[in-house]
């Protein structure tokens, strides 16, 4: 447990020590802020329903950038050998890196709390959907980062990791549309895989257990696969 936290801290120090983190976050806030303003102007509704959906798409592009360096860099420079020697277990390394990326996600989302604050200044937003909306976007981001972590563990090249992540996320996000081309049970599987359709209920104010299970499954599955991937590294 202590190892996990140590790994996470190390990662976070590296992340917040570099200017990249701030540039990416600032960029994210510019885009998000712009869409927030658009939704205020166009709908005059005290809600984040419309903004959160677009944030999901923005994450699609940004999270590969966040997750790509998590493991790929270590594998390239060889520092991963040091990490993988006892007493750090593979699982602790993976969890530590993942925890760090989750905290990065929270750090990126935190400034957006400014939007509901503005909404409450000029209107009476419904609290429930705000809560469920943030839960949803957090789960979505967490799932994306888990995919990114897995991709990062498969290669030594950060760029390859990022591109791989982006490709997978794109397919998962658009899985809904792809399902139109597949018939029968395969089409149903594709439709279920769509992250967008599992996310869409949260900003409306509805929390569905199926959606939560979906995101948690993706996270658990990817983290497990990452651990296996690191183990195979030993003899690769």
């Amino acid at each position, binding site marked *: 447990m202590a190892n996990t936290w140590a790994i996470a801290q190390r990662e976070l120090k590296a992340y*917040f020590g570099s*200017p990249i*983190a*701030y*540039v990416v*976050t*600032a960029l994210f*806030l*510019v885009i*998000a*802020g712009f869409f*927030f*303003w658009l939704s*205020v102007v166009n709908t*005059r*509704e*005290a*809600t984040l329903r419309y903004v959160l959906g677009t944030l999901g798409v923005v994450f699609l592009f940004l999270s590969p950038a966040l997750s790509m360096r998590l493991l790929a860099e270590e594998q390239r420079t060889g520092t991963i050998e040091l990490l993988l020697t006892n007493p750090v277990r593979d699982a602790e390394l993976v969890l530590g890196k993942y925890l760090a990326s989750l905290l990065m996600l929270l750090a990126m989302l935190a*400034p957006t709390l*400014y*939007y509901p604050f*503005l*909404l409450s200044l*000029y*209107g*009476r*937003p*419904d*609290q*429930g*959907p705000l*809560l*469920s909306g943030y839960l949803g976007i957090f789960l979505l981001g967490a799932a994306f980062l888990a995919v990114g972590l897995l991709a990062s563990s498969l290669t030594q090249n950060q760029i390859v990791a990022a591109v791989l992540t982006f490709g997978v996320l794109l397919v998962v996000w658009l899985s809904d549309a792809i399902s139109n*081309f*597949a*018939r*029968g049970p*395969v089409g149903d599987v594709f439709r*279920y895989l769509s992250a967008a359709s599992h996310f869409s*209920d949260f900003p*409306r*104010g*509805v*929390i*569905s*257990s*199926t959606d939560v*299970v*979906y995101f948690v*499954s993706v996270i*658990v*599955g990817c983290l*497990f*696969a990452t651990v*296996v*991937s690191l*183990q*195979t590294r030993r*003899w*690769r």
Partner: protein
Amino acid sequence: MSASLDRARPFVALAGVAALVAAAGLFLIEQEFTLPVRVLAAAGVLLVGIYVAFDPEDVFRRLTGQRVLYGGNAVLTIAAVAGILALVNVLASRVSQRWDLTASGQFTLSERTLQLLERLEQPVRVVGFFENEDPSRGRAEDLLKEYRVRSSGKLEYEFVDPEIAPSVARQLEVRDFGTLVFLQADRKQTVTGVSEQEFTTALLKLARPERKKVYFLQGHGERSLEEAGPDGYTEIKRLLEQDNYEVKTTSLVTELRVPADAAAFIIAGPTRDFLAEEKQALRDYLAGGGKLVLLQDPRVAANLDELFTQWGVSVGRDPVIDPGSAFLGDPATVVIQRYGLHRITESLRAASFFPLAAAITLPRERAEGVQVVALAQSTDRSWIETDPETARFDEGKDTRGPAALAAVIEASATAAVPPPGGAQASAPRATRVVIFGDSDFIANNFLRVPAGNADLFLNAVNWLAESEELLSIRPKERDTRQLFLTAAQVNLVLVTSAIFLPLVVLAAGAAVWWSRR
């Protein structure tokens, strides 16, 4: 073995595997062994076969090497975990729980609707025809999504833009935007408003093999259902039949009793007074849980007030003049833009108008077990005009508004009369009365004006006819929370959100970078 052939071998293997994977993929998509699938599969097998044939020993060594065993083990472990997760997801989607966090319970469906959706015997398809920018499209989609999830997919929906695909609209006889058509087997039910009340009513009607009957009373100068002229009711009759009701007429003088199979009983614009026996028949009907619609104009001899005095309701003799909401400048035709909160009016978007309507007096206090709701009211600037010659407010004679022009009475039935159809008398039935102070508003020539008149009346009839089934549906107030900002504040939002906030973050980054130098 020549060197070049040697180098080509891995590619042969790769090509063979790729062909097999492509074949498998195509098969999954097409779900059958089409020609391309067969060709690819054959090519794949052939190529892999060639690869193996060139040096079988080498292939064997490769397949059983240490790396492959470890790798295979890894793949199997991951496949097992993936399988477990997939199973968990399948289970989760079967026993899904949903929590509605909205303050107004927008996404919570009533017990009755949930029951209906669970027990759907045949699949239902809903087609919605909306303009893209119409906000009710979003509301309809929200509602339909809940319906779909709760029906475990037995109810499916789609939206069609009638401008892009007019043939679909024509095929389903859809004429206006904002209409939805519910289809089950070979039956169809058209819905013009977005609310749980209307959607579930449509489902109820689809599930019911026979149509419910609606009776219009005759014998006191009421509106004629056969009269196609401007004052007639042929159009509203047609709309009722289109809404899957059977429309019949009856007379209390010959029948002495309201028909037992009446889902709703309508008295439309009586001008002559009623016989004592007729009033008694009506009193019995109401006491036994009757569903009555009364459309009574001002300044007529007909007087049914004695039926409603028990609830403190009476219909006035004099018309309401409302300069605050006049139809095309005529203050005697009152336009109703805001309705009272009730299931009948909850989905109404269009305004309606009443040409020369009487005021309905409502009780001052609430009585136990009785609910009286004003569906439509005139504005503060209105008054009840007692002078037939002039339309001017006379202090002392005329009463100031606002006045109710349409009202609903809900009470529990006082007599234990068995429900129609000979079914067992269950829990106490409810008596429901809808009173309109005017019968013109749904006459043929006024229905020609695009307004909410027809929908208001049809919703009332639907509410009465289905009321025993749909008790549990609460009307939901439209909960759009508005933002109130000046133009300057809007700019403030833009500047602080999209410029200031990111700059703060960048400044933090700069501070960190500076301290590292």
